[in-house]
């Protein structure tokens, strides 16, 4: 199924005490003279929190930047949909927070499958992010006296989450977008919207450019640079239904993987516990109800199977507040992976609510009685509004019905401490890399990571590479560029020429269902073994029976989707292989064979305390596994307990 490489991946984590690593490393990084920066060109793909902040910051430093996004404007990247907030260890509430505690919570939350040094750096720069965003005019929630407000979030027992109502991602992204627009106005960043990256250009082993398709007119373009920064988000849409935007895809990452970049830990996927349940087979996406709701909402199911009374009619003694029962110290704020599995356990056992039985209640009755409807509205108004729009039910009156859904992917392209992949010159930031969240991400830390990578890591680390790179300009008609362009062209021609009988969406739905059933919240050896040949068969059918209408020389959304689904078809197999190879349960990766007596994930630190980084060997061929051992010098991996 796969081969194991004998090498050990070098994460290039600097030596020395954890607290000093980043400072010492920054001192050791080579610098590019201010006057020389404009001579270096950098391509940034994706304009979410990571890409937007990276492109803006690199532009500010003076580099010549080209930024790309597939949406019609960089302001629309899916970071915008993040609701709840962003963590930082400011300790403004005086509740005992510290950089060390944020680091510890994040490492523990990730079930000890993240790299210590990266997570510590993340916790260190988190405070700078808040300051930077405030200075940009991000309207964070404030107390009456004018100081910044905090709220609590899953996986932490203190309040360290900064927020803008239920639209924190939107405001942070607009901050980064505005900084980016400012650089566009200075001419230091050239913005290319409605461009989709189709190939990575590798020259002499280094990443030197990309091939993109202009989605408005279908023209293929070659762009070369001294380095490529990939900020293209996660791969949750491999499940078809997820909380991701419809356009989110794995193509940019997968194209780099096919050119040699290792893909790390693809089986670490996050199933978010609080999403609006599926309502029909036409469903096109799932909508998240922010984790912040679990601050005030209580999760429950009826104690009696088949209790179809209206929820308000069910008295307290006949309700099972199962998170509070199983995890009394964290209660409704247990981490996402644990809360999701607890919901699955109850619904699988037949206690689910709603028409499908695949839902649990999230009830605000007590919060409204305690604080009043106005207070609840002020905190969560937009979320309640959104819930009512979708379900036609008023959550101020009846409890929300929620169910877990695919939300975030911790896996991604492998990167070292500098956020550079194994391909020199290819940097990977934000959700697209694998580095900071281990096997499970805690709430309010995705925004933190995206902005940390973009504002405060890449501006330093990329200079070190550029200062040492002596490769000269790469012409846009160089042989390696022409070859990549031809590959992209050939693939488009092939997709358009199959002319079969099934639509792209029908393949995507089928793939998604397969992945959800066998590679979702719970996985088994037999299920995964049976799934891999089915993915292959579906991929084969795709290439012989898909129908992509229209032509390449115009806006063609079917063609866009077809290219993305084709890559998901290859990627899905790697996800399943990774899940099958990891004979343990950790964080979001739950193998039913490996659980404790009370149903919690059972890690195997002796054999699996490593990053699994996969090397591509051709579609359908056995991938090669490279391992990066995880070294814990500062925290001792223990069984996570939220009881």
């Amino acid at each position, binding site marked *: 199924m796969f081969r194991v490489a004998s090498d050990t991946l070098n994460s290039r984590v600097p030596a020395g005490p954890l607290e000093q690593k980043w400072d010492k490393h920054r001192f050791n990084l080579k610098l590019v003279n201010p006057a020389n920066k404009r001579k270096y060109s950098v391509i940034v793909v994706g304009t979410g929190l990571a890409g937007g902040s990276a492109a803006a910051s690199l532009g500010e430093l003076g580099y010549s930047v080209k930024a790309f996004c597939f949406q*019609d404007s960089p302001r629309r990247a899916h970071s915008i949909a993040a609701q709840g907030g962003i963590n930082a260890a400011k300790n403004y509430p005086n509740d005992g927070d510290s950089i060390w505690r944020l680091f510890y919570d994040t490492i523990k939350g990730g079930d000890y499958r993240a790299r210590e040094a990266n997570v510590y750096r993340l916790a260190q720069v988190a405070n700078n992010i808040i300051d930077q965003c*405030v*200075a940009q005019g991000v309207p964070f929630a404030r107390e009456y006296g*004018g100081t910044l407000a905090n709220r609590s979030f899953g996986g932490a027992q203190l309040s360290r989450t900064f927020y803008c109502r239920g639209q924190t991602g*939107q405001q942070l992204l607009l901050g980064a977008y505005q900084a980016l627009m400012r650089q566009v*106005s200075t001419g230091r960043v050239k913005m290319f919207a409605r461009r989709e990256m189709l190939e990575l250009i590798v020259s002499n082993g280094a990443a030197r450019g990309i091939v993109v398709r202009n989605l408005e007119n279908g023209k293929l373009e070659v762009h070369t640079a001294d380095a490529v920064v990939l900020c293209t988000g996660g791969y949750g849409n491999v499940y078809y239904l997820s909380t991701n935007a419809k356009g989110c895809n794995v193509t940019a990452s997968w194209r780099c993987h096919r050119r040699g970049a290792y893909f790390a830990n693809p089986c670490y996927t996050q199933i978010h516990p609080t999403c609006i349940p599926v309502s029909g087979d*036409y469903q096109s996406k799932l909508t998240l109800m922010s984790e912040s709701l679990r601050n005030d909402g209580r999760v429950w199911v009826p104690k009696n199977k088949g209790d179809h009374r209206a929820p308000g009619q069910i008295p307290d003694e006949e309700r099972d507040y199962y998170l509070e029962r199983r995890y009394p110290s964290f209660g409704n704020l247990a981490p996402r992976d644990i809360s999701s599995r607890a919901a699955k356990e109850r619904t699988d056992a037949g206690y689910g609510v709603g*028409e499908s039985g695949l839902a649990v209640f999230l009830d605000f009755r007590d919060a409204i009685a305690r604080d009043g409807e106005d207070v609840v509205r002020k905190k969560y108004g937009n979320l309640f509004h959104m819930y009512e729009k979708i379900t036609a039910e008023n959550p101020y009156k009846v409890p929300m019905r929620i169910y877990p859904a695919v939300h975030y992917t911790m896996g991604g392209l492998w990167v070292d401490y500098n956020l550079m992949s194994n391909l020199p010159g290819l940097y990977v930031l934000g959700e697209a890399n694998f580095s900071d969240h281990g096997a499970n991400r805690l709430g309010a830390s995705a925004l933190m990571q995206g902005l940390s990578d973009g504002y405060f890591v890449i501006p330093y680390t990329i200079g070190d590479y550029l200062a040492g790179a002596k490769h000269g300009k790469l012409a846009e008609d160089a042989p390696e560029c022409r070859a990549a362009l031809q590959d992209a062209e050939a693939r488009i021609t092939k997709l358009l020429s199959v002319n079969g009988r099934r639509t792209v969406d*029908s393949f995507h739905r089928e793939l998604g269902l397969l992945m959800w059933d066998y590679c979702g919240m719970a996985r088994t050896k037999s299920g995964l073994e049976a799934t891999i040949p089915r993915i292959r068969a579906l991929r084969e059918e795709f290439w012989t029976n898909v129908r992509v209408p229209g032509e390449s020389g115009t806006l063609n959304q079917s063609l866009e989707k077809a290219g993305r689904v084709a890559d998901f078809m290859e990627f899905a197999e790697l996800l399943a292989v990774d899940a099958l190879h990891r004979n343990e349960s950790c964080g979001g990766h739950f193998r039913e064979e490996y659980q404790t007596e009370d149903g919690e994930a059972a890690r195997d630190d002796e054999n699996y305390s490593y990053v699994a980084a996969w090397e591509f060997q051709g579609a359908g061929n056995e991938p090669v596994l490279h391992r990066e051992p995880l070294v814990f010098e500062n925290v001792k991996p223990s069984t996570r307990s939220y009881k």
Partner: protein
Amino acid sequence: MSSDTLNLTLRVWRQAGPDKPGGFCDYQLDGVSTHMSFLEMLDVLNEKLIAAGDEPVAFDHDCREGICGMCSLMINGQAHGPDRGTTTCQLHMRRFASGETITIEPWRATPFPVVRDLVVNRSAFDRIIQSGGFVSVNTGNAPDGNSVPVPGNRQEVAMDAAACIGCGACVAACKNASAMLFVSAKVSQLSILPQGQPERSARVLGMVAQMDKEGFGSCTNTSECEAACPAEVSVSHIARLNREYMKALVFADR
């Protein structure tokens, strides 16, 4: 929940390209679940069109949760359809009746040229933001977040304005194709917050100049924009924009 379905006639604007002529095409779509979102209904139409060997209708969409601002559509002459404070992606078919004809058009405004079918080019908005819709603070220069207090009530007003999703419904709804609500939202947010003060005058002058250059019309205070705005941005921000503009014209050091 009921399993009600609708039979609908869809009058959809089809246009093969920016320079091609456009026109309405009628499609019959039966058995539409009332629980579908409007865009899911269009997905179903497109699956049907592809199966029949036709080209699907191109429309912009992405997050499908009302925040990215990518979706658009004039639905029966109303930007984002009949519901207040709602984007097209959050509009659900339970809002319609069986037998209805639904007319679906792209945003109609000269600064938003049609790309194909229902897709328009809104890059004019990006250029307006480039003309001053930011605070000029380089990464790394920021003082502690709590060093400048912002009264909670002022922050709330700034947040009301900042909620703009940049979808362009305000322009589409306006008989003059004015972009005043969009521009005012950003000007208002940054003129209220202390961080926006140093560039306050330059910002409003720059953004208004770019807005005019892009060809957006003038505001005649009909407030259609506010009624259409899915983020419910208030026209009071336009009043603030006008005050800011006047102040900047008179007092700005230029």
